[in-house]
């Protein structure tokens, strides 16, 4: 059964108020908590390891899949391997998320691999939210790995959001794009206290006419540390653009390593990176509208991470 705490976590990570419409699979404290399949979307448990296969029939349009994971006990170590098969010509919305409520002294950890096959001409929007809470000393650790293969004319849109709450994270994203395939990755990250986050995104542009766009924005506060690594590998006539922007505050540290690798003369790759404080003229402007410095800061950060 889902209690009110679970529902709160669900709402935060999956914008779900109660049990979702459409296909879903809810995992709680390492166990299957609920599942629903539809005529076009099947979910089956893997037999060789922990995890599920989500199979979306070709031509499925306008349907959604929710696969939240919630952890509300201390000292758990949960690992899953989920495989998504997005059938040819389909257009779907997938929401995954992990909420950890760690009330105790021991660390809770969720490691997951999400593997996607976006088939010919299919379109997928994938939203992943990571969220942690709980008053104990136990750390909330999440190490998600996302692997996406986008076939000819396919489109993948990724939104990866992690705002506070997760103490230690290594997120790895590997994307392979075939002919005319396209990916747009939006990353939002906020760390505070002594949190650590490491995000690595590698996109291989294999097919002619493939394109990738990455927009990463992060805010590092207090004593937190962030590391970024981006690599666009252009192996064909392709377009790639990475834009990463970090706001650094207090004693935080941000390391950003950009790499663009052109292995084809028609590979057109751009990387833009900036790390800096909140601009003082932005603060002054909002203060001159009557806000305190603190309020102005909050508004600027909220907009930036929007």
């Amino acid at each position: 059964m889902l209690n009110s705490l679970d529902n709160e976590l669900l709402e935060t990570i999956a914008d779900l108020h109660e049990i979702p419409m459409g296909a879903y699979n809810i995992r709680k404290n390492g166990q299957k908590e609920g599942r629903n399949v539809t005529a076009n979307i099947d979910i089956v448990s893997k037999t060789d390891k922990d995890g599920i296969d989500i199979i979306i029939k070709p031509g499925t349009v306008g349907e959604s899949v929710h696969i939240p994971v919630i952890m509300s006990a201390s000292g758990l170590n949960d690992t899953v391997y989920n495989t998504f098969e997005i059938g040819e010509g389909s257009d779907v919305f997938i929401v995954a998320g992990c909420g950890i409520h760690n009330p105790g002294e021991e660390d809770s950890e969720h490691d997951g691999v999400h593997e996607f096959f976006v088939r010919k001409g299919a379109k997928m929007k994938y939203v992943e939210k990571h969220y942690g809470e709980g008053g104990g000393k136990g750390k909330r650790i999440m190490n998600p790995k996302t692997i996406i293969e986008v076939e000819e004319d396919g489109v993948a849109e990724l939104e990866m959001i992690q705002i506070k709450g997760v103490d230690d994270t290594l997120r790895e994203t590997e994307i392979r794009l075939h002919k005319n395939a396209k990916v747009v990755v939006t990353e939002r990250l906020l760390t505070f206290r002594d949190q650590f986050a490491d995000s690595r995104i590698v996109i291989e542009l294999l097919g002619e006419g493939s394109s990738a766009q990455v927009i990463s924005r992060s805010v590092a506060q207090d004593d937190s540390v962030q590391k970024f690594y981006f690599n666009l590998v252009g192996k064909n006539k392709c377009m790639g653009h990475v834009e990463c922007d970090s706001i650094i505050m207090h004693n935080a540290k941000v390391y950003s390593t950009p790499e663009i690798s052109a292995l084809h003369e028609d590979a057109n790759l751009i990387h833009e990176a900036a790390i800096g404080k909140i601009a003082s003229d932005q603060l002054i402007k909002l203060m001159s509208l009557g806000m305190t410095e603190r309020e102005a800061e909050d508004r600027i950060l909220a907009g930036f991470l929007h």
Partner: protein
Amino acid sequence: MLELKNISLNVGKDSKDILNDVSFDFDSRKLYVITGPNGGGKSSLAKIIMGIYEPTQGQILFEGEDITNHDITQRAKLGIGYAFQQPPRFKGIKVRDLLKMASGETADYKHMCALLQDVGLCSQDYIDREVDDSLSGGELKRIEIATIMARDLKVAVFDEPEAGIDLWSFQKLAETFKNIHEKHDTTIVIISHQERILNLADEVIVMADGKVKEVTSKENFFADLEREELDCMCGLDCSKGVDKNVELIG
């Protein structure tokens, strides 16, 4: 109502004063235009009024209260506003968000549209745009002006509102200033180099070298300007300035 007393501003050691013993009394309900050469200290004076710069010397009184040590937020809450000469851009903040913040969260959709129209922007096209690099210079500038118009102010300072704004929008803007001046009690201070704006002035303040050089009526200002035009100050060997240069050399 807003009184500047012997204001001086000096950043860094040994450098010359940006503002040098400026005293001026702004009356309520009047429209002032501050003009003068580039670098004369106009924006610095505006920033002193808003609390962005702290004067090295002098005092600021607002409705009789000493506000010299008030910070920006406190002055904003008292009803002082400043439209930047070079407004900042914000990633992820929309025009509607900024107008809403400016109005103290009170402005509704209709009000925001009216504000945008007052600065010559089509509200439908702009209200959901982000106030980021995607806006042109003139668009940004007009949105900046709208944020000041969204507020209920006792003193509103506009820093070169005409800069970068096309002729058509500028005409609209000048009309808007005129309307505000006629309908509201706000004391309006416009830093400007434009004849059309100068024409709105109850008083013209000429600033140069960190000082108030002259306070005059617009009629006298234009009369003086015409005389000076005959008598070029450029200091070069130009046709108008020949006599003067000869005089200087002699």
